[in-house]
């Protein structure tokens, strides 16, 4: 395993990560100052208490207590298991089939929902739209730079559709909670649970939606927009909750928890994904455009929490199969020359 990138000697943040500075020992300012990853126990304790109270109050009132965004990956599989077995919620499992899900991940979804005995729905957007969305997300600057410190543009496009679709289902079925499998490091500490003013959220996403509409047409609103009708119609919006943030599992512990459900690690994905065959390409695009991996922040957080060794994190970052990158470029009709190149400032 050879890594020629200059990185922090404690975590895996690299020299091109925004605002990074190294001291004489090669330790980055994020490790020194705990920027981004302050996991104050009081925050977690308060979230644990608040989430338990919310579940207690709403459990059993609607057809489903929660809709769980389920990708088939290991984190969302554990989220689903915890929702059903630990929190005793009646859940509706929901998968967005983006056209690049590993066949083994699809089998995992089948096996896990069967083992948990829960209802499941899959939404499969037009393959043509998804290809075009991924293509423009790869080539153009669509999203806020801060957003892209945590996630690749293509993953963000996909997750926007997941969130939007889950919200529509939740509103339609009066489901009080939307559960996702994000962990700390992927989201800010104070986003463990939150409610949003969707009218303001819609305004805040206007510039992104305008860019996407210019490039892709009005279908963008169908898949990623929040309609005025929905906003006017709804009195109370669901609460978004990331219950995995309350847990402290190593990757091995997560896998050990979900293996009894019939979950099998897919072999046709990169080191940072356990369900998506587009992820290697997404990371490649991000590194080409910005000079660092979209997983550096998350993996560095896990290292600081002693949930992952630095060596394991490096192994994940460097496990980017070229065959998957080439496959995605061919499928999306993207030429290498179309990708903007990162320039050292």
């Amino acid at each position, binding site marked *: 395993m050879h890594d020629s990138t200059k990185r922090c000697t404690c975590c895996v943040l690299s020299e091109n990560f925004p605002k990074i500075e190294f001291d004489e020992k090669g330790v980055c300012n994020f490790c020194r100052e705990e920027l981004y990853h302050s996991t104050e126990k009081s925050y977690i304790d308060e979230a644990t208490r608040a989430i338990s109270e919310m579940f207690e109050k709403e459990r059993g009132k609607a057809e489903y207590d929660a809709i769980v965004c389920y990708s088939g990956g290991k984190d969302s599989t554990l989220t689903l298991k915890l929702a059903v077995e630990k929190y005793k919620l009646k859940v509706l499992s929901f998968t967005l089939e983006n056209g690049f899900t590993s066949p083994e991940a699809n089998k995992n979804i089948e096996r896990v929902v069967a083992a948990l005995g829960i209802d499941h729905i899959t939404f499969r957007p037009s393959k043509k739209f998804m290809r075009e969305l991924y293509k423009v997300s790869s080539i153009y600057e669509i999203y806020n730079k*801060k957003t892209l410190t945590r996630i690749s543009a293509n993953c963000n496009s996909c997750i926007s559709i997941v969130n939007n679709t889950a919200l529509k289902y939740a509103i339609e079925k009066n489901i009080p909670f939307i559960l996702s499998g994000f962990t700390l490091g992927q989201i800010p500490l*104070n986003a463990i649970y939150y409610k*949003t003013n969707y009218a303001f959220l819609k305004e805040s996403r206007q*510039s992104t939606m305008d860019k996407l509409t210019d490039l892709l047409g009005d279908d963008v609103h169908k898949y990623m927009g929040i309609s005025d009708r929905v906003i006017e119609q709804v009195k109370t919006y669901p609460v978004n909750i990331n219950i995995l943030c309350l847990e402290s599992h190593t990757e091995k512990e997560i896998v050990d928890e979900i293996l009894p459900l019939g979950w099998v690690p897919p072999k046709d994905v990169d080191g940072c994904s356990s369900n998506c065959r587009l992820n290697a390409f997404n990371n490649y695009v991000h590194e080409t455009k910005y000079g660092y991996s979209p997983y550096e922040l998350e993996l560095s957080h896990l290292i600081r929490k002693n949930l992952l060794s630095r060596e394991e994190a490096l192994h994940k970052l460097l496990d980017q199969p070229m065959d998957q990158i080439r496959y995605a470029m061919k499928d999306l009709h993207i030429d290498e020359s179309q990708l903007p190149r990162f320039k050292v400032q």
Partner: protein
Amino acid sequence: MKTEVLTKESIQESFLEFLCQQFLVEREDIELEKSLVDTGIIDSMGLIEISAYLQREYDIKITEEKMNRNNFGSVIKIVDFVIREKL
């Protein structure tokens, strides 16, 4: 939670410090009277982060109804909102 006497100036100073640290921007990038979203400083998740920061720092309750452009439309509006909530 802040316990010292709050003034517009002190709230603004603390808030700008928070923005610079959390959103990887320099002070000179922040236009006080313009929307933080429109100027690309924050995204929709940033609104959640700011809301949680204000609730924690100033012990105020921010319901989703209060997260609107009148209250969160700029640094100045956010500071004024905190002052109103603390009255």
